[in-house]
């Protein structure tokens, strides 16, 4: 940890030296959906992200791993501008979706969040009925013409989240009365219902039991066909199971990014190796 703190001190002193050369990014076999270049973020005076360069491939699962406070969730929230709501946050550098800078003035943040949906660490259904939870997004975005179409969206979203068989008979019950795992799948269904292109997941299984976790992991794998997924996780096995690309963060720096199998079998950085073998973190 002492070494890490020294790193941090160095980082703030010479941020330009930290920028990873683009050549170190792994060659991706698919098109790039989201991209960040030299993305830096300050909480007040504190530099929390020090020049992140990362390409997020389309229709793949990208896992962000690293110890607590390493900036992985902060980075995730940069991708749909959820950090905008926090006071004192300042962002520099580029983050793009399909090549368009998402921090550009011309980008509407409401539209962006409809395209880049988010699932949170703690299941956070609205204290409304199951139906209304799913229907809320389509309603505010005007995705459905009439009740029948809305019903269709609700059903298909719940089906794709693997929840339909469990809740089809009680759509008008309060969502807050469901189990934690069901609530989290409901939140995923709610995100799907808006038809986003990218789904950001912030430790979606950290509040769940192993069985619910397994279900959500299966679900993530299925969703990959239709969506680009970025998942933050503390659980290295989970990253290894669900992701195709893994990025390792430490103290606001992106230490290493590589195909998941390569990163776990032959980490290129000693710090990555120390972390995935459990020597710190």
């Amino acid at each position, binding site marked *: 940890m002492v070494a890490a703190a020294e790193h941090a001190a160095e980082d703030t002193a010479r941020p330009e030296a930290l920028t990873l050369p683009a050549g170190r990014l792994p060659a991706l076999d698919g098109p790039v959906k989201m991209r960040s270049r030299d993305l830096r973020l300050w909480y007040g005076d504190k530099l929390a992200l020090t020049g992140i360069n990362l390409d997020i491939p389309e229709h793949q699962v990208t896992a962000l791993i690293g110890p607590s406070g390493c900036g992985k969730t902060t980075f995730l929230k940069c991708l749909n501008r959820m950090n905008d709501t926090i006071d004192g946050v300042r962002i520099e550098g580029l983050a793009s979706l399909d090549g368009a800078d998402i921090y550009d003035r011309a980008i509407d943040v*409401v539209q962006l*969040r409809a395209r880049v*949906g988010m699932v*949170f660490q703690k299941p*956070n259904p609205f*204290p409304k009925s199951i139906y209304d939870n799913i229907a*809320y*997004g389509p309603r*505010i*975005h005007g995705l459905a013409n009439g009740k029948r179409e809305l019903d269709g969206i609700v059903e298909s979203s719940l089906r794709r989240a693997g929840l339909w068989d469990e809740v089809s008979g009680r759509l008008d019950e309060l969502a807050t009365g469901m189990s934690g795992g069901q609530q989290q799948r409901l939140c995923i269904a709610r995100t799907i219902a808006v038809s986003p292109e990218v789904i950001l997941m912030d430790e979606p299984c950290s509040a769940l039991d192993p069985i619910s976790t397994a279900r959500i992991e299966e679900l993530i794998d299925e969703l990959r066909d239709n969506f680009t997924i970025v998942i933050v996780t503390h659980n290295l096995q989970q990253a290894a199971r669900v992701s195709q690309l893994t990025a390792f963060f430490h103290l606001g720096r992106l230490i290493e990014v590589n195909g998941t199998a390569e990163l776990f079998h032959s980490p290129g950085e000693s710090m990555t190796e120390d972390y995935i073998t459990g020597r710190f973190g």
Partner: protein
Amino acid sequence: MTDPAPAMTSYHLSEKAGRRLRRRYARERGFKVLSLGALGLTALFLVILLGSVVLSGWSGFITTKMRLDVTYSESHVDAGDPSSGNIRMVVLDALRERFPDVSDRRGLRALLGIVSNRGFLDVGREVAGDPALVGRTVEFWLPVSSDIDMLNKGYIDRTAPEDRRRLDDRTIAWIDDLEASGDIATVFNWTFLTSGDSREPELAGIGGAVLGSFWVLLVTFLVSFPTGVAAAIYLEEFAPKRRWVDIIEVNINNLAAVPSIVFGLLGLAVFLNVMHLPRSAPVVGGLTLALMTLPTIIITTRASMKGIPPSIRDAALGIGASPVQVVSHHLLPLAMPRLLTGAIIGMAQALGETAPLLMIGMVAFVVDLPGGPADAATALPVQIFLWADSPERGFVEKTSAAIMVLLGFLVAMNGLAVYLRQRFEIRW
């Protein structure tokens, strides 16, 4: 398995630790006794307060009536124009018939004094509505004057020397005679609940004051609730965290602690002297009290919005709700139960407020029931203040009875607030 080594003897089992533990328990008991004592004292004060109010106020809800057979003789009432008949003479004739031995002028005047002014009105109104009654005899239950009412309720000391009490021996004898023949009745005092103020204690009622308070609170609510909620939403959700917003926040909190009389002065200066709104009108009282209630509503609204987990805000933003949608679809509905509770408690505060109303002239003697927020009116606490100031014995019970009505409204409002919170609040 074996005896523990001496070194293993825990400090926590030693005599010293035991003493310490006993001391801690003793201190806990002492604290408990003190707390219970404080609670007991509070309860005692409450019982004394309510007890004294109820004891002196319950009789305000009942009143005394006397039966009198009144004959509308043609010499006093003309069948062609019954409303201009000499009703005093009609009643006097009836009283003379009932007490034939009274003939002197003073005695006759005293006899007339038994009946409340309202009684003459009742007798006159009856024949005015039905001219066919002229020449016939009708049985009336007439309200008696306040002194007789006091005597009937036992507030006049019969053992006192005659020149030291409000009623002479002869009048008391008449009342005892009426009582003995079953012509005196104690009934529920509807007049007290329905009519406006009066100089005669037996005719004074809180109906006007209740209506006045209603109009005041209506204006207060309509002005302070939307304004306060909107201000709170802006400060909580949209205002940038800048220095001037901090200054506004501090000032709102300070405003909640400003003495209410200051708001009264402000109301006087702004609403009456600058804007020339009608004096003594509930609309001015309502506006003044709205200024006073505004900080309370802003503070409770912000507190109730802070009580909503941030995850709900994240969830809505995360699927692309705009900030206004986040507020109107999620935060406001979820905050509503607690918000309404705060508003009702603010209203209850406004209901009990007297000082600002004194400043804007709502401390007037108003006989008529106010028909709208622009009519001259008084409010419940001001009415209590007015009656408490009146010298007549009959107003003592009215004062306490009005306090009971005011407390009743306050308890009902707070009860509604508790009910709303229990019933609709969502817990996480």
